[in-house]
């Protein structure tokens, strides 16, 4: 499970020895995020975002539990209970803003984490399971965030829920009954609000469980690194404690400063004003938009405006929206290049920086804009590239690309030389 040079857990205090013989929990911590876990020495700051994501999950669970203490999942009072929390509960305004902006911070961190994975090929063997579990976490996060946004029962809560659950209605034959069964009615109402609350409380703990599997799977091969060259010797690594505890630790401070500036000075800037209007099923908002972190996928949903042969446009949009994330599951097998890191892949790097990133940025922008021209046409071109990137470009690029020469080891990439490299037969990697 770990490298042979990993520090061994040696409890010195008699109580810790007693504990270690019965429930070796301290040993688990020591080997996971302590001195017993050797980590590549050359990680850059993009590798801090995994730790930050775990922190975000904890923040959401803690603030969410407090919010739930004051919330009532009933359409008649849900909106008012949130306002009551903000106005009359001690520090309630802070809990509410921390939870709402915490969700945004969580998604900012997770998008950086995912795109780190794209660039550095973190999904490649032997880390496929780490990647697959990560995509599962992302899907669960999206479901949780969507249901959480419904709970205040404002205008966007209601109409967002109506649009998103309406997507199930696009499924042929079973769509409509399925939609009614999921909602417990013909439109979002008390039954839907209650089950959304129940699931919104449940799913974060499911996420926590999958996060544990994600980290477990990560610890089998160990962390990847910016060169993509696997760890070969002790000189390639440093123990997680104290090195990465210190690095993650101070970077948490940077994250917390950004978070607190959002929370205390711009608490409503990422939310939609319409959600401060209580839900009204008789009055449709001018533009129904989800929260910002769904925008790229919402843009893909809306990009399909024409029926395609016998497939209705709406169904195409739904297929594409889910397909846009499901395609990530196949990434380890779509990108067959043996080189992991984008830094040593000249062609891939170009498609990443000048293709995927701009396409994603455009989809973000168009997903939040009104569904009018020219935004729809622009989003169609961006969505076209998005699918082409994963399904056409990656398989071809990985077949024809000539990667740059890799360093012999992490040590060599950091120090310029590696004594072990002199002894190794030339060309062996």
């Amino acid at each position, binding site marked *: 499970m770990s490298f042979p040079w990993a520090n061994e857990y040696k409890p010195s205090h008699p109580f810790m020895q007693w504990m270690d013989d019965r429930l070796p929990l301290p040993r688990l911590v020591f080997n996971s995020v302590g001195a017993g876990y050797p980590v590549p*020495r*050359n*990680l850059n700051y993009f590798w801090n975002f995994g730790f930050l994501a775990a922190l975000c999950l904890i923040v959401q669970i803690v603030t969410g539990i407090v919010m739930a203490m004051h919330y009532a999942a009933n359409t008649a009072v849900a909106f*008012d209970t949130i*306002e009551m929390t903000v*106005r009359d509960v001690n520090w309630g*305004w*802070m809990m509410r803003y921390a939870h709402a902006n915490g969700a945004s911070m969580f998604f900012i961190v997770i998008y950086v984490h995912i795109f780190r994975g794209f660039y550095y090929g973190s999904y490649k063997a032997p880390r496929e399971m780490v990647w697959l579990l990560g995509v599962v976490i992302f899907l669960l996060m999206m479901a949780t965030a969507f249901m959480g946004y419904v709970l205040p029962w404002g205008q966007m809560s209601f109409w967002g829920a109506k649009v998103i659950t309406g997507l199930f209605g696009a499924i042929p034959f079973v769509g409509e009954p399925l939609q009614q069964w999921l909602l417990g009615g013909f439109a979002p109402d008390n039954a839907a609000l209650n089950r959304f609350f129940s699931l919104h409380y449940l799913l974060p703990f499911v996420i926590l469980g999958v996060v544990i599997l994600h980290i477990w799977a990560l610890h089998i091969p160990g962390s990847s690194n910016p060169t993509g060259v696997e760890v070969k010797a002790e000189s390639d690594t*440093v123990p997680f404690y*104290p*090195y990465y505890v*210190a*690095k993650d*630790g*101070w970077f*948490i*401070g*940077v994250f*917390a*400063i950004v978070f*607190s*500036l959002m*929370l*205390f*000075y711009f*608490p409503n800037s990422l939310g939609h*004003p*319409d959600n*401060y*209007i209580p839900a009204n099923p008789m009055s449709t908002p*001018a533009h129904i938009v989800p929260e910002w972190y769904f925008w790229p996928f919402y843009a893909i949903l809306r990009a*399909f*405006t*024409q029926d*395609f042969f016998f*497939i209705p446009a709406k169904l195409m949009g739904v297929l*594409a929206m889910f*397909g846009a994330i499901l395609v990530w599951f*196949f990434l380890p*097998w*779509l990108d*067959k290049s043996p080189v992991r890191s984008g830094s040593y892949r000249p062609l891939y790097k170009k498609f990443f920086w000048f293709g995927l990133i701009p396409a994603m940025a455009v989809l973000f922008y168009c997903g939040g804009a009104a569904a*009018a*021209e*020219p935004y729809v*046409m622009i989003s*169609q*071109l961006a*969505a*076209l590239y998005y*699918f*082409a990137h*994963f*399904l*056409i470009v990656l*398989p*071809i690029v990985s*077949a024809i690309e000539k990667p740059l020469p890799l360093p012999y080891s992490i040590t060599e990439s*950091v*120090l310029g030389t590696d004594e072990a490299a002199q002894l190794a037969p030339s060309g062996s990697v």
Partner: protein
Amino acid sequence: MARILSILVGLFFTVALAWSFGLGFYTWATDPAAPTAEHEFHLHPKEVAFASDGAFGKFDKQQLQRGFQVYKEVCSACHSLNHVAFRDLAQLGYSEGQVKAIAAGFQVPGVDPTTGEANLRPGLPTDYFPKPFANDVAARAANNNAVPPDLSLMTKARHEGPAYVYSLLTGFQAQPAELLKKFPDSKTPNGLHYNPYFANLNLAMAPPLTGDGQVEYGPGNPKPTVDQMSKDVSAFLIWTAEPSLDKRKQTGLAVTLFLLFATVLGYMAYRNIWAGKKH
């Protein structure tokens, strides 16, 4: 094999998108969407400054009291303030006795202790502001079929809320001749009022603040012009929407300063630990 399969799936989505794009582009190029009066004559809220703006901004309590007076004497005839209780008014600088007196000036729904019949009684500080209409039907009947919205959260429920409220109150005007020339069908319907700051340009609310001195401010306050009253009531509605604004910014300053300090210490510890370790 996997490669061919993936390219086929990729082609399925990209061709469908190209098809949607092509037809959309053709429609856009040959049959562009007709311009609308809303699109051409709707105005962005005016620039207006409030004491509570900015990272160090704080409420001007004197202004909030004036704004409350405008709400009480003008707006409250039609607009509710559901989330605000009389006790909250202490935050505007009113004494306990003044809050009691203000509350007692409102009639709130109660129960007759002898008969159990519903009645009206003078308000207490624990009561919330009473609603001007018994229900939405009554509100519609009295207001040309429009329900006057609750104002508690108004400045957070619109883009650039405070400036929007101010612009709306000062933005009533005659419909421009240019608009009627360009869009002859867009004449403001009877009973509605033209206001370019309102999303669809025609508003059921009649201009509520029509003349200077409509509300009489006490001595030491600025002249109650329509502009001043609009500003004051907008400031009051910033407070009703976000009573914790002052505390939030103060807390933010303390938290951010602490975090800066802690982060610098953390950075120094990090540099110390990694000293001599090339990475």
